[in-house]
């Protein structure tokens, strides 16, 4: 039975158990004797929990463990030559054995029965190819018996698993059903189960963070075992050569500095444009605008926040980049007489400008919240002493809101650093180290995308570097976020 069918069967058993449990507890409810502690629906859930939860736990444990067991027992029968090689060759061989095994299952029974341990692999693969299953050319004769063994082991495991899981579900249902009594505190048990489920759900946030850190950590360590951290963090040249067939095996250079410089430069330009605009917009909306203006302008600015970044990237690529290039050509023409553009279509300025558009609503809505949360009394006090509105804002409200605004800016900066699609389309791919904002630079995120799209070979520094970059990016933004959240928390307490 497929895993999905097993789950369905277990759920069906749970449902039947629930119905039976419901009827049994109903019978108690109407019979003379002690009063029912919990309502029948809880007894029903009690039976269903006993039926479903242990059996599904067993199912998932089995699904995790059995491939490992099968792998270890099959791979011990690999020939000496393969075992002597690295674990990579072993994995590769196992992959081929697996695909032969998968292929055999596709064959109609009468063809499958012709294959025995001694069938040469050429026959098998030609048979499989006729059914549209390609087999790697590295397949060898010794793999056929192993594929058969693998298939039979998998079949046995599945049979055992089906039996065990369904038996456990039945046993659980029976156990729960037998336990139904008027005095049974079914509600408390069921609520315990519910609470457990809630805790599990909220732990997923932690699991995700752990997943992020560990998934990148292993690959990063692997990367640093090939390229020294000093070379990565302090190198000024980025040129990871993709190692093709016949290359000399040199990995190229992985200098991180140009990427970091590009990232910070572009984010800096974006912040330089977005922060004043966003901040002034927020101040105007919080302090000057009447309700009607506010109700029109605020959603309009928030539309900018709802537009996917790929759209901004396209806008930069098709409209802003060419516009800046042509504009610079005009300016150069007027001032020097030669119409050569000094802004490249893909440049720090293009990416920064478009990213700024994306950040404006971010800055403005975050600071708007913070400014409006400054207590009314501070405002009234200042106005009452004869200060104008702008003086109140500059001398009273902004200083009071400063920590909150700083944290908003940190969050914005972290978003600017992690932004991907705009820079992928607008910033360029060449890892330059320049201070000219009219030239193209590249960022960490662009390089992560560039190293990981296309054909992957998971064991080269060229792909592993993406994880090292991701790890660095994660820590950069983590620091910004945590610090920002810390400020927000502290600031919140101040006025509550």
């Amino acid at each position, binding site marked *: 039975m497929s895993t999905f069918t097993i789950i369905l069967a277990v759920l069906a058993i749970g449902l039947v158990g629930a119905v039976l449990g419901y009827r049994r507890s109903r019978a108690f409810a109407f019979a003379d004797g002690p009063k029912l502690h919990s309502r029948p629906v809880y007894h029903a859930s009690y039976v269903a929990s006993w039926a479903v939860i242990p059996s599904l736990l067993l199912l998932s444990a089995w699904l995790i463990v059995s491939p490992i067991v099968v792998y270890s027992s099959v791979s011990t029968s690999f020939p000496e030559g393969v075992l002597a090689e690295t674990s990579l060759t072993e994995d590769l061989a196992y992959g081929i054995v697996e695909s032969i095994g998968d292929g055999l299952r596709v064959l109609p029974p009468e063809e499958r029965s012709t294959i025995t341990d001694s069938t040469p692999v050429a026959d098998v693969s030609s048979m499989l190819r006729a059914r549209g299953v390609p087999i790697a050319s590295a397949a060898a004769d010794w793999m056929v018996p192993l594929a058969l063994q693998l298939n039979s082991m998998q079949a046995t495991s599945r049979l055992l698993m089906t039996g065990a899981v369904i038996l456990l579900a039945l046993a659980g249902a029976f156990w729960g059903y037998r336990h139904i009594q008027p005095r049974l505190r079914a509600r408390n048990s069921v*609520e315990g189960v*519910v609470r457990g*489920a*809630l805790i599990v*759900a*909220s732990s997923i*946030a*932690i699991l*995700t*963070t752990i*997943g*992020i850190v560990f*998934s*990148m950590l*292993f690959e990063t360590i692997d990367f640093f075992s090939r390229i020294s951290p000093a070379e990565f963090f302090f190198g000024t040249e980025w040129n990871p050569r993709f190692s093709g067939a016949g290359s000399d095996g040199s990995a190229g250079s992985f200098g991180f500095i140009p990427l970091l410089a590009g990232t910070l430069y572009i984010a800096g330009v974006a912040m330089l444009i977005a922060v004043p*605009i*966003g*901040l*002034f*917009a927020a101040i*105007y*909306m919080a302090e000057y605008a009447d309700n009607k203006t506010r109700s029109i302008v605020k959603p*309009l*600015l928030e539309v*900018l926040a709802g*537009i*996917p*970044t*790929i*759209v901004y*990237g*396209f*806008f930069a690529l*098709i*409209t802003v980049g060419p516009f800046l290039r042509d504009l610079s050509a005009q300016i150069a023409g007027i001032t020097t007489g030669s119409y050569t553009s000094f802004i490249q279509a893909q440049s720090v300025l293009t990416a920064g400008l478009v990213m700024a*558009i994306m950040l*404006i609503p971010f800055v403005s809505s975050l600071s708007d919240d913070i400014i409006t949360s400054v207590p009314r009394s501070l405002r009234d006090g200042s106005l009452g002493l004869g200060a*104008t*509105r*702008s*003086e109140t*804002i*500059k001398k009273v409200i902004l200083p009071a809101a400063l920590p909150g605004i700083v944290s908003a800016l940190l969050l914005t900066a972290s978003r600017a*650093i*992690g932004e991907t*699609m705009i820079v*992928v389309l607008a910033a360029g791919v060449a890892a330059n180290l320049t201070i000219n904002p009219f030239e193209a630079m590249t960022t960490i*995120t662009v390089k*992560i*995308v560039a190293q*990981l*799209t296309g054909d992957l070979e998971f064991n080269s520094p060229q792909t592993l570097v*993406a994880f090292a970059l*991701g790890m660095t*990016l*994660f820590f950069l*933004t*983590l620091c910004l*976020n945590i610090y920002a*959240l810390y400020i927000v928390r502290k600031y919140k307490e101040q006025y509550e």
Partner: protein
Amino acid sequence: MSDATVTGVPDASPARRDIGIKKRYAAERRFKAYGITAIAIGILFLIALLWSVFSKGYTAFWQTEIHVPITFSEQVLGTPQQAAESQTKLMMANYPQLAREGLVQLLGIDPDDKAAVSAASALISSGVRVQLRDIVLNDLSVIGQTQDVWLFGSSELDSALKGQYDLTVPENRRPISDLQLQYIDKLKSMGALEQRFNWGLFTFGASSRAETAGVGVAIIGSLYMMLIVLALALPIGVAASIYLEEFAPKNKFTDLIEVNINNLAAVPSIVFGLLGLAVFINWFGLPRSAALVGGLVLTLMTLPTIIIATRAALRAVPPSIRWAALGLGASKTQTVFQHVLPLAAPGILTGTIIGLAQALGETAPLLLIGMVAFVADYPASPMDPATALPVQIYMWANEAERAFVERTSGAIIILLGFLALMNLTAIFLRRRFERRW
């Protein structure tokens, strides 16, 4: 106060003390002007962005088609009897030849004039191969008959007709020749050339030719992912919020979860792509490019958004509701699930829709899990290779052809349409069901 006026000099009114009030008011006006300018710039950017997309993209919804009488000749296709026996010949037949012959006849070109014939046939999309094959395979009886068919024009014809080429430049520097322009005029005067609504944009998959490229397959991929996100992120998010808001004791563990959620909401999306690649594809061995993996990654990304929205909705339910339920003997769990949750449902729904809209527009993590694939067929299940709407936009954005710029903008309009629809639904729900306590 009154003393001062009495004892002051009565006839000579005092010169007003200059306290800089003018200057201060000027500063006030300037300050206000800065604010208005900032907002104007923001709105200007919005208009520029939307105008740029819409002005380039609206034409993508129309596609030039040519009305050509096609003779489904038996020489090319084989007899109907042969066709009924084996479809191999039908699959491989030279359909472009049929289209070419039909067009040459329609335009009255001498079939031996090689240059003229090839100029004319360049007006037809090579997508006619599939288009005509589908007609024949649907109905074998057309073989040997002549039927009027609307054929796709090539992207060059389409762009020329939409005025996207500068026709004043010398002939050899533009993709369409003078001879072809003559043919276009002739076809136009015959009424055989028409801009028809481009259904293909909504139904086709990836294609290397603009006229047969569409976002249909990508929309299905996105739909699968949205369903997965909805099925996973909503229950998990709601459960997590209920725990944190209603049950969790104040301790280190709860604090850790809170910091985690807030931080995850601000982690760059591309990092989730790396997580998906390392965990779901490398460890769990799920297939690359599958909608399932995309859905899982987007679920993890959307969770914080949904949790934050749900917690706000739960917090907005007044404590009196809880006290009333508890006072009547309901357990804590009953109170939460039977009273608080239903009252918070509209807020949760709104937050979920906004989270989904965010997930729908997300591109970067999907690039890393291999959804940048050339997918021409509809994915039958979430395990099949699929692509997503924003990823399709990304791939088209990298195409240089003029016709693809139009398609890309068209696809963006579709994407923005979906997002607008979702956000409007959210606003409507909020307006309709919001309760003020």
